[in-house]
Structures are given as C-alpha cells and as structure tokens.
C-alpha cells in the first residue's frame, strides 16, 4: 500500500486503533491540511500519536463531543480536513445533531474514525456498547459508512476517506482484530465488497468483526458438510455494493447477513433493501444483536452469546440449508 510506513509483520503486533493512528500520521505528512480532534480519548482512540507528531494540528477539546464535532465542521469550512476520534457511541449518538446538521447537511470533509464499536468494549456495558450506529449513520444523507474487517483494512479505509469527498464514518473495534488479510494489496475500494470465499449454496454477507468469523464458518462448513458458502466482506455499508448483493441473491438464493450490531437498520437491513428489489425469491436471515441491550462480558463471549461467532454462523447456515422451501415455490430460474 502506498504511503504505508509499517510492514504486515508490524501490523500483526498493533491493535486496529494503533494502525489507524500510524496511518493518520503518514497521511498527515502528505497532507498538511489534515487536523486531528479528540475529546479526552486521544490515548484510547490512538489519534494521540498524530497529536504527538503534529501538536499544532491536534485539538483535545476535553470531554465535550458536541463541541468537537461542531468545531470540526467549522474547520472543514476553512479548507482543513479534520479527522475526529472518540468512541462510536459518542460519535453517533452524543453528537448526532452536530454530525447531522453541521457536517452531513453541509456535506463537509470531516472524517469520523469511531472506536470501541459494536460489542468490542463488552465489559463496559450498554453506555459504551454501540450497536445502533450503522443504522443511524447510514441514514444520514451525504455520509459514507465503512466497517473495516481488520487492521489493514482500517488503514485502507482511513486513506480512502481522505480521497473521498464529504463526511465519512469509519467504525472500528477496541483492541485487536483477527487478521483477515495477510497481504495489503487485495484491491480495497469504497463501495466494492470483497469475495473472501467462493460458493454457490449460500452467501454470508458480513462486516467488521464478523468477517473473520464468517470466513472460518465457511471453511468449516466446506470441510465438514461439503457446503459451498460464499463469503462477502461488505466493508462499505453505504454506498452498498448493489451488484454483489444482487449476484448473491441470483446465484445462491440463500443469504445470511451477520454484523456486530443490532439486527435493525444495519448491514442486514441495507442488504435486505437491495435484495428485496431483485424480484427474486430467496431465503434470508439477519444475524446480529436481536433488538435488546446486550449483556456484559468479553467481546468473544458476547459474539458467541448472540450467535455471531463461527459456530453461531455455521449453525444458522445449516439451519437454512436444511429448510425445504424450494418445493413450495417456483425456483426454476435458480442458477
């Protein structure tokens, strides 16, 4: 990847947020108009390394998220490109009016790198779990929403956000992510899903922390059950890759979405909106957090609890494959 000052080996030892911080430092070298903002979470979100490198271009506003996003809007109006980092919940909910009205409405170049998303801050409880942000952010006009699957994809997204006009929301996790990509150049492009595993029986569409788990499930299902499961990494929720969803519906007729987010309004809903417009009959299931405030616990445990880990995903695939719905309907056009 151009401009990357760390190797894949380094990356394996860095948390996702650390990779973000380093990437932003590199971008900062290339583009003097980039500024950084945080709200007493410079250390936690790792935007602090940008602050250490460019102290004059970094603003810690204290614990005041609304002020921070408003300031970012003002800065963007003057031609600066603010990267703003706090926890996902405070980006998408505490400061939402500022994000909506000051940033999205004016279509400003503010890049929001929101950390501790989904259930990744599991032990912190509902005040810090963030399972509604994809739904919220993708409903904002002008907004681009990206949910990277791992650290390297985060580096791509942070760079791509600079080149993309308008507000961008990048949702990352606390701590380390499982490594999905062992080489950097796999062709990351905003709005283009990545096929990680080919298959014609069923398609799993995943984003973020569930991508690695979906891939593991697909490998296991191939070995144990002989199933051919397609896995799509839908890293961009908005604009969604319409073509990839349509192909999944037409070619596999069974689609399961999986996300570390509520089943309402997120990836599953975004996919459903496209899939329902294909005019094709298909079997569909959305996996995620089922319209509740999550229990507390370790991220791993919570993903298992809500059936969005490898085993949970595999069980849902098996269940869908076991349904004899084809007899009821005219499925002659199935490929």
């Amino acid at each position, binding site marked *: 990847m151009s401009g990357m000052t760390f190797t894949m080996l380094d990356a394996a030892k860095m948390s996702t947020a650390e990779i973000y911080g380093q990437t932003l430092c590199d971008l900062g070298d290339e583009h003097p108009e980039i500024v950084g903002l945080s709200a007493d979470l410079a250390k936690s979100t790792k935007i602090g390394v940008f602050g250490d490198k460019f102290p004059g271009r970094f603003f810690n*506003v204290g*614990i005041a998220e609304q002020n921070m996003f408003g300031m970012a809007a003002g800065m963007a109006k003057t031609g600066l490109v603010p990267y703003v980092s706090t926890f996902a919940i405070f980006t998408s909910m505490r400061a939402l009016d500022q994000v909506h009205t000051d940033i999205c409405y004016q279509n400003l170049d503010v890049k929001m790198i929101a950390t501790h998303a989904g259930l990744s801050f599991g032990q912190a*409880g509902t005040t810090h779990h963030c399972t509604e942000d994809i739904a919220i952010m993708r409903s904002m006009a002008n907004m681009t929403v990206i949910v990277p699957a791992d650290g390297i994809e985060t580096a791509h997204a942070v760079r791509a956000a600079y080149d993309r006009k308008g507000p961008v929301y990048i949702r990352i996790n606390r701590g380390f992510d499982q490594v999905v990509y062992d080489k950097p150049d796999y062709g990351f492009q905003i709005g283009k899903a990545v096929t990680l595993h080919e298959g014609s029986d069923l398609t799993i569409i995943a984003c973020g922390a569930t991508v690695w788990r979906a891939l593991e499930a697909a490998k296991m299902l191939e070995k144990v059950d002989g199933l051919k499961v397609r896995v799509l990494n839908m890293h961009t929720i908005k604009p969604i890759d319409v073509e990839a969803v349509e192909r999944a519906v037409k070619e596999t007729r069974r689609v399961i979405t999986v996300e570390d987010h509520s089943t309402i309004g997120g990836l599953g809903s975004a996919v459903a909106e496209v899939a329902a417009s294909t005019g094709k009959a298909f079997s569909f299931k959305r996996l995620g957090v089922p319209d509740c405030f999550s229990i507390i616990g370790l991220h791993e445990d919570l993903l298992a609890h809500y059936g969005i880990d490898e085993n949970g995903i595999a069980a849902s695939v098996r269940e869908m494959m076991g349904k004899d719905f084809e007899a009821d309907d005219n499925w002659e056009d199935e490929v």
Partner: protein
Amino acid sequence: MALTTEDKRRLEDKAHELRTLCVDTIVWAGSGHVGGSMSAMDIMTILYHKYMRIDPKNPAMPDRDRFILSKGHVGVGYAPVLADLGYFDKELLKEYNHTGSPLGMHLDSRKVTGVEASTGSLGHGLAIGLGMALGARLQGRDWKTYVLLGDGECDEGEVWESAMAAAHFKATNLVTIVDRNKCMIDGPTEEVMALEPFADKWRAFGFEVVEADGHDFDSLAAALDTAAAAREKPVVIIANTIKGCGIDFISGDYKWHYGGFDGEKTAKAKESLARFHAARASGEKGTAK
C-alpha cells in the same frame, strides 16, 4: 451537625474497608477505574454512612434519598459501597466484569439494586438528578438528591445546561458534588481543558459554592450541612481530592485513571492503604494521600 470523634473514626474505618474491597474487586474484575474510585470513596462513604436516608433492605423505599454517580465509570468503587451495605450479595463482586454478570464497568440500574441511574456516558447525571429533585418537590416529599460529578466531566455542556436549570428552578433539595481530583484521561484537567476559575463558573450559574477537603470527613460534613440548609440557591460542593488517594504509587497520577494490579502491586496497594488509614486515624495532617 459536626461529627463526633467516634463518627469520624467510624467513617475512616469504613472508608478504609471500602477502599480495600475496591482493590479486591479490581483484581477480580481484571482491571478497573481505580484512580477515580479512590478519589470518590470518602465522599460516597460519608453520604451512605452518615447523611443519606436509606434502607438497603427496602431499596425502593419511596422516601429514600437518591444518589447518582454521574461519573459512572467508577462503578468498581461504587459497587463495593452497595454490596457492603447489603443491597446485594458481596460474593457477586467476585464476578465483576465476568460474562453474564450483572456487574459491569458502568453499573446498570436495572440490574444492580440500589443504583438509581445507568450512568457511564458522562454529563448526564446532573440533569437526571435535577429531574428527581423537582419530582420530590412537586410531590411534597422531603428526600434529597445527591449527584457526584467528575471534574473532567464538567467539560460537557449538558452539565452547565443542568446547572442553569437547577438555579433557575431553585432546586435546593439537589446537592451537587464535584470530585475535583484535577485529572482526566489524557492529562491534568488544567492542561487538557482548563476549568479554572471553576468556583466562579458555578457562582455565575447561580450556585452557592462550598469548597471542601474531599478526604477530610469534618470538612465534608460541614459542606453537606451547608447544602442541607440551602433555601435560595442550589449548593455545589467542590470536593478537592486526589486521584488514587490512599495508594501511594498511583496517587495524583492521571495515568492511573484505569489499570490493573498484579499480585505484587495488590500487596503494595493494600500496605499503602493501611498506612494511609493509620496516618489519618492518628490525626496527621497532609497524610500520605
């Protein structure tokens, strides 16, 4: 009402017990917000063991005083206070942060008996407390609402929106306390986002300001008595505290906002707490805080 010597001794003993139990809970939990728990512990101790009208056996008692831990991240300091009083089984502290436990980093009012509001998103507590205080007044009840804020938390605009409203509505049955430990996550408050002149800000918003030594029970008692006598303006107690108070190797160090203790550090922490307690009991001024 001034504290008797016996009162004071009892509160110091209780605070020591609770600080120690907090260290244990942090060990059981794996890690926790130790700095802000230690700075707030004497405040919570005097409220729960001297000032508040409560009945842990009847936690929903309609006329109970309300306490809102607006700086909700120090659940690991607050849970021991509640468990010790019998709001729930102390054994539960051993499962703090464990998957499926009712006790997480920020306490959930629907899962933890005795907790009045699910805090953790900073800046919310004063508004909720004001609502409760006005609720009491409207219904002719005499209970009080106590809200404990972090000083870094006072960066949030909502705190000042609530402050303006509390003065406007003359909510004298609301007692606001700020744990002024002068630290937040990214550094000292005055370096990250200066609060001073802090007392003047509260005054300008219509509050009567009482400054107290947040680690001296006489001083806290005098401040709480002033708050109890408030008739015109709501009172804010700015409790000057020390982040990590009682544990010498973390005290005053903002980097210990959050952390964990291995076996060696746990032992050192407990030794330090014992020294702190002994020094305080002997009436030493400016002890090993």
